[in-house]
């Protein structure tokens, strides 16, 4: 008889890991053969995926339903612009500032918002995002309410752009897109790997316990409030970095755009909900579905948003575990297994 062993690995997850690594390699070398348009589309997908993974970590695993994540995208983006315009930093290096700024904003945000429960937490985060937007709009050095652009010299002298331009034989603007794309890809891969790692640690298991049953988790000694802080700050940092990368590529910022609840929270929630909340696979599937819908429908303006809203409502009511829930129910597939399973031998009942 084979001895029992505790493992989180499934056959599907081993295949997924291999395919995943292959996919990431292909994505890294994509600028060799992909058009500039495709690179821009991939950039959009990867940054939205990153935002979705962090929102999913918050809401799906941490039970913290925030509708104020635009605060961290906005503050991250503005920190990058501030570092470049006021501090003459290299834009790529300034991305680190994005994460730090988001983290700094997240501490008072959590302090206030954690005083509110459930749905009120959601609106509380929204209020703080509004406060951040209105405050930033008062910052005249960064363009006030109308916003500003990254200086041309800073963009021209940005690290690696010359090298990329030479290697790929493209113009400076295309080289910047490739650089931004690589940054977004690195961020997305690091996000998924990092969240997967976090969820598989003892702390991550505690997180699942807190989500499933706060009282029970407390009784076995899980410090729920500390977990909330960890999750909230991690998400804020990651969301801030994503905000920096997004606006490095856009190179133009305004408070209304950088703190947009539709772009950085509504879309992100939609992605997680239709993909499947509380799973790592869900946001990946969700961002693809979202991109598809956007390509098909975005010409229809308000109809497009109405349809997105309706799809979100219908999925939440009738398939609350999203597309990935439907797939894994049918097939039992798990690409990022978190549950520890007993393998070897046979379990009799």
């Amino acid at each position, binding site marked *: 008889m084979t001895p029992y062993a505790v493992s989180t690995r499934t056959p599907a997850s081993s295949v997924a890991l291999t395919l995943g690594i292959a996919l990431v390699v292909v994505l890294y070398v994509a600028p060799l053969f992909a058009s500039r348009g495709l690179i821009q589309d991939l950039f959009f997908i990867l940054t939205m995926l990153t935002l979705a993974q962090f929102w999913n970590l918050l809401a799906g695993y941490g039970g913290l339903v925030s509708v104020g994540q635009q605060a961290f995208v906005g503050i991250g983006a503005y920190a990058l612009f501030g570092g470049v315009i006021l501090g003459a930093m290299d834009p790529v290096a300034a991305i680190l500032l994005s994460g730090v700024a988001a983290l700094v904003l997240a501490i008072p945000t959590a302090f*206030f918002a954690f005083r*509110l429960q459930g*749905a009120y937490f959601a609106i509380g985060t929204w209020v703080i995002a509004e406060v951040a937007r209105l405050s930033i709009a008062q910052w005249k050095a960064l363009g006030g309410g109308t916003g500003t652009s990254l200086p041309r010299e800073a963009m021209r002298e940005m690290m690696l752009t010359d090298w990329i331009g030479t290697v790929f034989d493209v113009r400076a603007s295309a080289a910047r897109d490739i650089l931004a794309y690589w940054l977004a890809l690195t961020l997305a891969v690091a996000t998924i790997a990092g969240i997967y790692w976090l969820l598989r640690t003892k702390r991550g298991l505690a997180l699942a316990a807190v989500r499933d049953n706060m009282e029970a988790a407390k009784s076995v000694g899980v410090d729920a409030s500390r977990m909330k802080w960890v999750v909230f700050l991690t998400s804020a940092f990651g969301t801030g970095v994503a905000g920096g990368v997004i606006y490095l590529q856009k190179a133009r910022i305004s408070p209304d755009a950088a703190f947009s609840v539709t772009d950085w929270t509504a879309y992100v929630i939609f992605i997680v909900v239709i993909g499947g909340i509380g799973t790592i696979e869900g946001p990946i599937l969700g961002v693809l579905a979202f991109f598809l819908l956007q390509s098909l429908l975005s010409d229809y303006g308000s109809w497009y*948003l109405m349809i997105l809203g309706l799809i*979100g409502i219908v999925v939440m009511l009738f398939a609350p575990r999203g597309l990935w829930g439907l797939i894994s129910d049918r097939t039992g597939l798990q690409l990022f297994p978190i549950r520890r399973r007993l393998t070897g031998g046979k379990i009799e009942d």
Partner: protein
Amino acid sequence: MIWVDTLVQGILLGGLYALFAAGLSLVFGIMRLVNLAHGDLIVLGAYLILVVVSATGMNPIFAAAVAAPVMFAIGWTLQKVVLNRTLGEDILPPLLVTFGLSIVLQNALLEGFSADSQRIGFGALETASVPLGPVTVGVLPLMTFGTAVLTILVLNQIFYRTAIGRAFRATSDDATTASLMGIRPARVFATATGLAMVVVTIAALYLGTRANFDPSIGPARLIYAFEAVIIGGLGSLWGTLAGGIIIGVAQTLGAAINPEWQILAGHLAFLIVLLVRPRGLFPRGKD
């Protein structure tokens, strides 16, 4: 003198915010549901009144009386068909469904009425004013405040003096036991949301007559309403009025210093109250 004037204007503005908040507070009190589309439903109500006014030329108050039963029916159906399915231990479904509804409503209104600003004409009332002690106040803001007080009085009467109010409280306490009393919780919830939509219609009347509105302003109204509810303490309608007044006064004071600071000042007042009194000014026993 200008400060007294600012203070009075702020208090009267608070009446408007209390009207925004009363429906939110009612629904939360009965079924622990926070409707993220609340602000957009107020805007929907304003468009409904606008349509009735433009179609018939009737006084906006009568138009609101026409719109109110329609809004009741919308709320009743929304609760019965959609929102009742989302109630339960998990807070995600109601939040995400009402967030989706907010997006749908905003864009449906955008499609139907365009992004242009609208206003419901109220004739001479729009500019009429009366002296009130040392200051002069607009008749419309004064009416708004009076309506807010009256609305809260009536809601409290309904809540504590009528059969449906008893059913509201009993169902809120314990829906299963309420069903043993012949009460159908799903229907009580639908009635509560219908009633909240009547209050929303009243709020919409003043939203639409006091200033311009367009399809995108709902979420900001939701936020003011939410702040008023939290400041007042969950479950207390008079507290909600006090919360509305605090937001209103903070906004007018902020605007008096620098017009760009109006909204920010309101939010900051909310955060300060949250810091000092996390459970609001007039908290009730539970929650």
